[in-house]
């Protein structure tokens, strides 16, 4: 069984924001909600790097741990999804998430955030696959059609990778090998408990290894 993961190769990301646009379009996301965003560190300075970030579908997901109504669940592919019919919009997942993934529509009355919305890895939600109800609440369900998330599929520089963690890390490892330096599985330490951002600059071991 595949374990779905995202990986953004910061050496390739050119901050075109096409992933953000594709995500919005594919899932028909309302105003004020951004399931994916591109962040540029040291913008305008030498050595600037950009990263596309969304829900990383963590192994030990903090959002699921703190949810007071337990509305999160994990698919067989390791995708973290939630049931909007159970979500009460308290915002605790937003407090706990390291990546700022949970989003809330802001057009509600004071104090009320509305149901949480986040990246579904283009895997819809708990409603029947590709039903109109599922689409209106959660957006597209490409995984049910055998397709990968659109953000990664249309990335022009192939910076954003999505898919089975083994395949993703294999591709990334090959890149790092050919590149000779400067490879880093950004966010993998936090999301999947692998050496990554927490262990400094060592991608050669298990950070991109095939487990």
């Amino acid at each position, binding site marked *: 069984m595949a374990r779905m993961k995202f990986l953004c190769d910061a050496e390739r990301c050119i901050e075109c924001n096409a992933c*953000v646009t594709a995500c919005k379009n594919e899932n028909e996301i309302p105003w004020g909600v951004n399931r994916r965003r591109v962040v540029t*560190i040291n913008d305008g300075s030498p050595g600037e790097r950009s990263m596309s970030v969304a829900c990383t579908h963590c192994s030990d997901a903090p959002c699921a741990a703190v949810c007071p109504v337990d509305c999160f669940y994990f698919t067989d592919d390791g995708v973290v999804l939630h049931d909007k019919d*159970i979500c009460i919009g308290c915002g605790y997942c937003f407090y706990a998430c390291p990546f700022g993934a949970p989003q809330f529509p802001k057009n509600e009355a004071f104090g009320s955030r509305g149901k949480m919305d986040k990246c579904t890895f283009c895997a819809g939600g708990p409603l029947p696959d590709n039903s109109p109800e599922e689409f209106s609440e959660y957006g597209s369900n490409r995984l049910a059609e055998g397709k990968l998330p659109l953000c990664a599929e249309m990335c022009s520089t192939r910076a954003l990778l999505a898919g089975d963690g083994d395949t993703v890390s294999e591709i990334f490892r090959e890149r790092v090998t050919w590149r000779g330096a400067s490879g880093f599985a950004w966010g993998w330490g936090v999301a999947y408990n692998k050496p990554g951002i927490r262990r400094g600059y060592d991608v050669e071991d298990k950070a991109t290894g095939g487990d």
Partner: protein
Amino acid sequence: MLWSLLLLFALTLLLPLIPYAVAYVNPDAGGVPNPGSELWREVLNANVGATQVQGIDSGVLISEYGERWRQYRMQQLAPWGASVLGVMVGIFVVYYLVRGKIRIEAGRSGKRVRRYTTTEMTVHWILASTFVLLALSGLILLYGRWLLIPLLGASGFSVTATVCKLLHNYVGLLFAAIVPIAFFLYLKDSLFNLKIDGRWIKRAGGYFGGEEPSSEKVNAGQKMWYWVAMLGGFVLITSGLSLDFTNFFQQGREWLQGAHVVHTIASIGVIAFFIVHLYLATVGVEGALESMLDGHVDANWAKQHHDLWYQELQAGQDSAAPEDGLAAGGTHAGGVASPVVKD
């Protein structure tokens, strides 16, 4: 032969240390720091980057405070809060079994004295009902996942939790309005009198044996509850409002996490003290509850629990025209002969 072997051995041990020695003497000798690792260190330290997405904190790539908050809520707040409240309830169950209800020793006299005005009672009950609603809804949101989902199911509990969240948000505003009123209304009776209240605290109010020490209209324990409720209430209101109006000050996640920590610690503290108040005011002390129901207490109850206040009342009654039992409570009538303090 032996010497060359020894030399070789020593060199194999020492030679690899040379780079460390160089680095120790001259830390910059290692050359240019790896730009990649520098960059990721900045990212880890929540260095805010540029992004096209408009939103609070959207420039932060990764924030490790979330994990800290998660640890707090799941591994400290939930178990410790339950322990504190459980121990408080347990203490009073044991106390009730051992000591039982504290009776009016002389029995009811049949004479009623006024203790609280209608305003004092109204404010008390508004404060009490909003507080209980807030405490219950807050506790349900904290513990419902473990206690209520098995009973109601996830969908059922979702409805409960939604109601609790709305109640908590809106009743909180009412609570914020009533606490300042209560603060000024009960302030005069709740200022500490070092001599009388000091003796009361030293003897733990006579709850654990010994004669009940003298007290004014409000005893030292009740005064402590006043200050816990009012100061705790102030902390709860300020932190709660900043959690309520999340877009008003553009609060980021770190602020919300901190406010939540403050809010929950204060709430557990106030609820723990509330359990003391609830016990003593209802099942713990005979004749206490009626003071908040119709504003009057039995004269013997007043004599037993608030002797100095009772003496004041009597002195006031002697000097004023007698009507409806005794004079209105709380007034420091003139001509109070030095109150007799029980020793």
